Structure formats: C-alpha cells, structure tokens
C-alpha cells in the first residue's frame, strides 16, 4: 500500500506541477457550469409558465429535469477528457526511459498500476468535487432530493474509474500519447453507443448488448436507483482494464 501511495504521489505531482490538472479542472468547470446555467434557466422559465397549471406544475422535478441531463452531459465531458488525463501514464514512462527504473525497483507491477490508477481517481474526485458548488446553490435556492444526487455522483465516479482503467490499459500499449488517447476515446465511445445496436437485436444478444453498454447502467444511477448490477458492472470494467494492463506489461517483459 505504501508503494502504491508513493507512485500515486509522484503522478499527482506530475499533474499538479504541470498545467494538466488546472487546465482539466478549468475546462471541466466551465463546461459543466454552462450546462447547469442553461438547464436551470430553462427550468426557471418552465416553472413560471406552469405556475398557473397545477397538474403540470406538480410534474416539475429539479432532479429529473436539471440534474438528470446535467449528469449525462458531465459523463460525456468525462468521456472526452479522461483519455487526455490517462494517456501519459505509461506512454511517457516508456518514452523517456523511466519504465526501466520502475521495473528494476523492488515494487511490483500491480503496485505501479494501482498507484497510477489512484492518482487519476483523485484528480477525478477533484473534478467532481468542484462541481458540488452547483449542488450547494441548488439546495440554497430550491429543494432537490439528495438521493438521486448522491447516486448520480457515485455513477459519475464509477464510470470515470472505468474510463481511467481503460485509458491506463491503452497507455501501456504504446509510447505515443496521442495514439493512446485516440484508442481510449474510440473504445469508450464504442461502449457508449453499443446499446444502439440492441434496438435492432433480439433475444440474448439484446440483453448482452444492453449489459455491456456504459450508458444503460448510468441511467439507473442518475434516477436514484442503486442497483448492485450497475455497480458490479463498473467495478468489473475497471478491474478488467487494470488486469489487462498488468498482462500487457508482464507479457512484454517476459516475451
């Protein structure tokens, strides 16, 4: 555990002593802030319009009509930004020759991978944590339900962890960071849209395609439904990504 933290600290240092972390935080906050502003504006005008009509008015729900879409928008921004966060993790070590240093030190490959994973998770937590200010404002001026907010954030975190694990895997394949980012982005997008194909599929295939789709599992969480299937899906996605990374590194060295 100590070694994992040593590697994580080194990666965090690299993120925060370079512009990477600040640029990611800033761009993420601007985009999320913009989406939030638009959604709240729209929700406000809807509330005013429907104030005269009690039937429609009772259907207005800030969780469903503001935070539901906001979480989906945030997940798309994560899909675009996390590959840029993870692309350097192994590619750079390989390129500048420091991988030889890591692999000849008395720490295991698993510890190195976990260290890098933990560092990226902390950056992800930072990104999500900073958007909590929007939630605070909503509580100050409205009365949203807390449960869908918590499960929504949990969903974003778990989804982000899965993205990061896949990003780490592609980073371990190549010393070119751009190749690593494109492969990660492409694969994530494929997992994202795979349930489109399920519309035309039938039987077991429909179920399989629905199950592997990243989006399908996210929907439940944004609605406040905490289903172990969804959590297990994201955790096993992340575990599989890290496991593949371990296999790639070991097989390359022992070939």
């Amino acid at each position, binding site marked *: 555990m100590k*070694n994992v933290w*040593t*590697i994580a600290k*080194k990666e965090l*240092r*690299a993120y925060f*002593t*370079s512009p990477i972390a600040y640029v990611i935080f800033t761009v993420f906050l601007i985009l999320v802030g913009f989406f939030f502003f638009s959604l709240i504006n729209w929700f406000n005008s809807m509330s005013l319009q429907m104030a005269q009509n009690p039937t429609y008015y009772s259907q207005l729900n800030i969780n469903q009509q503001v935070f539901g879409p906001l979480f989906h928008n945030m997940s798309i921004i994560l899909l675009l930004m996390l590959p840029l966060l993870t692309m350097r993790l192994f590619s750079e070590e390989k390129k*500048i*020759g*420091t*991988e*030889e*240093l*890591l*692999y*000849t*030190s*008395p*720490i295991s490959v698993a510890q190195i991978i976990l260290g890098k994973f933990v560092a990226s998770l902390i950056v992800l937590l930072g990104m999500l944590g900073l958007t909590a200010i929007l939630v605070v404002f909503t509580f100050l001026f409205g009365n949203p339900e807390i449960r869908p907010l918590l499960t929504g954030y949990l969903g974003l975190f778990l989804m982000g962890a899965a993205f990061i694990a896949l990003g780490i895997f592609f980073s371990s394949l190549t010393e070119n960071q751009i190749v690593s980012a494109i492969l990660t982005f492409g694969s994530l997008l494929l997992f994202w849209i795979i349930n489109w194909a399920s519309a035309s599929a039938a039987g077991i295939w429909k179920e399989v395609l629905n199950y592997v789709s990243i989006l399908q599992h996210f929907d439940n969480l944004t609605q406040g439904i905490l289903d172990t299937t969804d959590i297990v899906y994201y955790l096993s996605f992340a575990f599989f990504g890290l496991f593949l990374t371990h296999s790639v590194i070991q097989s390359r*060295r*022992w070939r």
Partner: protein
Amino acid sequence: MIAVERLTKKYGELTAVKDLSFTVEQGKIWGLLGPNAAGKTTTMRILTGFLPATDGKASVGGFDVFEQPNEVKKILGYLPEILPLYPDMTVTEYLRFIAAIKQIPAPKRKEAVAKAVKISGLESVKGRLIKNISRGFKQRVGIAQALVHDPKVIILDEPTIGLDPAQIIEIRSLIKSLRGEHTIILSTHILAEVTQTCDGVVIVNEGRLMASGSLEELTASVGQAEGAIVRVRRDTMAAAEVLRSIAGVENIRPEEDGLRVEWKSGIDPRDEIARCCLDRGFGLLEMRPLSLSIEDLYLKIVSGGTEQ
C-alpha cells in the same frame, strides 16, 4: 557477488546473449566490454530483473535473479543506458522518490538523499529542475539514483556515453571512489574506460564471451612483448637493418605506422636506438611504447577474432 552461468537470451530468432558465464568478486569494479550490439545491455537488463533470460542462471549477492527478483532489486543500483530521469522534478525531489521506491524507511530518506547528493557532487544543482541541468549533471543524477539506497551491487550501463572529456574523467573518478564498498559492473565499448577504471573485464562480442579475467590475468595470458614503434624520417628499411644490430634487440618488422622493434625483457635500448637513428642520418620522428596487449586482444576480438 555476481555469478552468471550459461546465460542465454533470445529475441525471437535473434540470439542476443549466448552461453555467457562470468563471476565478479565483492568490492571490485568489472567492465563488460564489447562493441555496440554485443549483448552488454541485454546482460545487464537480465541481471537487474528487467528482462528474463531464455536459459541459464544468474545470481546477485547470493540471490537468484529469477527466483528472488525482489531481493536482488533491493541490493542493486542500476543506471540504464537511457537516463531514467523525470525532467519536471528537482534533483532532490527525484532522489527522494527513488529513495521511497527503493524501500528506504521515510525517516532515513532525507539523510540518504543528502549522502547521494554529496557523493555525486550535486550540491550546486540539487534544487534545480532536472530538465534545466547540463548533460554531465544529469549523468551524475543517474549515478546518484543508482546509489541512493547504498546498494551492495551497482550496475552502470555506458556511464560515460555522451559526455565531454572533462566530464568523462570526473565520472570515472566518481566510479573509482565507490570501489571497495560496492561491487560494480559497468559496460562500455571503450577499452580505456576498462583499463583506467576496472579491476577486471568480461569481453563479449555478438553475445558470446570472448575473454574474462582480471586485467593482470588477461595481460599475462596474452603475453606482453617489450618494445616500441619507431618512426624515422627517411630510409625506413635501411634503418631497420641498422637497428637490428643493436644489442638486446630481438625482432624488427615494418608496420603501417613505423618499425616495430622488440627487445629482450629487462634491457631498454631506447637511448641507443635514438642515437643510432640520428647518427646515421635516418632522423627520428617518433618513438612510442608498444600498445598494451589487452588492446590488441580487444581489437582482434572486435574485428572478428576467435573465442578464448
């Protein structure tokens, strides 16, 4: 301290190292000498646990490299050929990170880093970012990271490559100062590095062992003739005839760069040779001792000689 037995490494069809065996005693500095692509880096990477071997055995400090890689890594410092530096860290930050991954307990890290900085002569740059220091200092940081955890064994892959002559001398004397406390293997393709720094040498070419032993052993085994290369201004062949008659001179033959004059051990007829050349009007441009026999041996091996 280091024992390698019939080590073989294949990359697919290519055999990088074949049946390599050698041992290095504790506290000595040994050179792994060979031309480029001789298998030096591969051998070192196997010893450090970075690469597996296809066949054979290797042990460092009594630990089997393949069975107990973590034990080996704990007692080993390694400077790879490509300097493994993080350009955005300061020298001190970098060495602290190395100290942590080399398992030095947190309270002792500061002291260990300070010691490595002192030994490697990095005091003046310890607070600077690695990307902003000179090549010579980067090399020193590379060496400092190899010895920050006070390892019993240090493996240095081409430690002086890419340095200017003054830096080469500095790095060599730094390496020599580590003799005794540490067992060191360094790889090089420059013979002078071995003769000036090392106690013994393993000569490899195309992945095979060509010769190994202490410098004395190797010199003795090849045999060292006493003599000089004499270059005269004119009439080289006539001069050869005249010099042959000087007492003690055993053998004279013309070579590319002058006359190779060999004499009996214990007799030094150089005064007489000089006098003779001048008195007879041949002139004297140069007289230099014969090269070390190990140099001839190395050149013969590199240019396609046979195994010993």
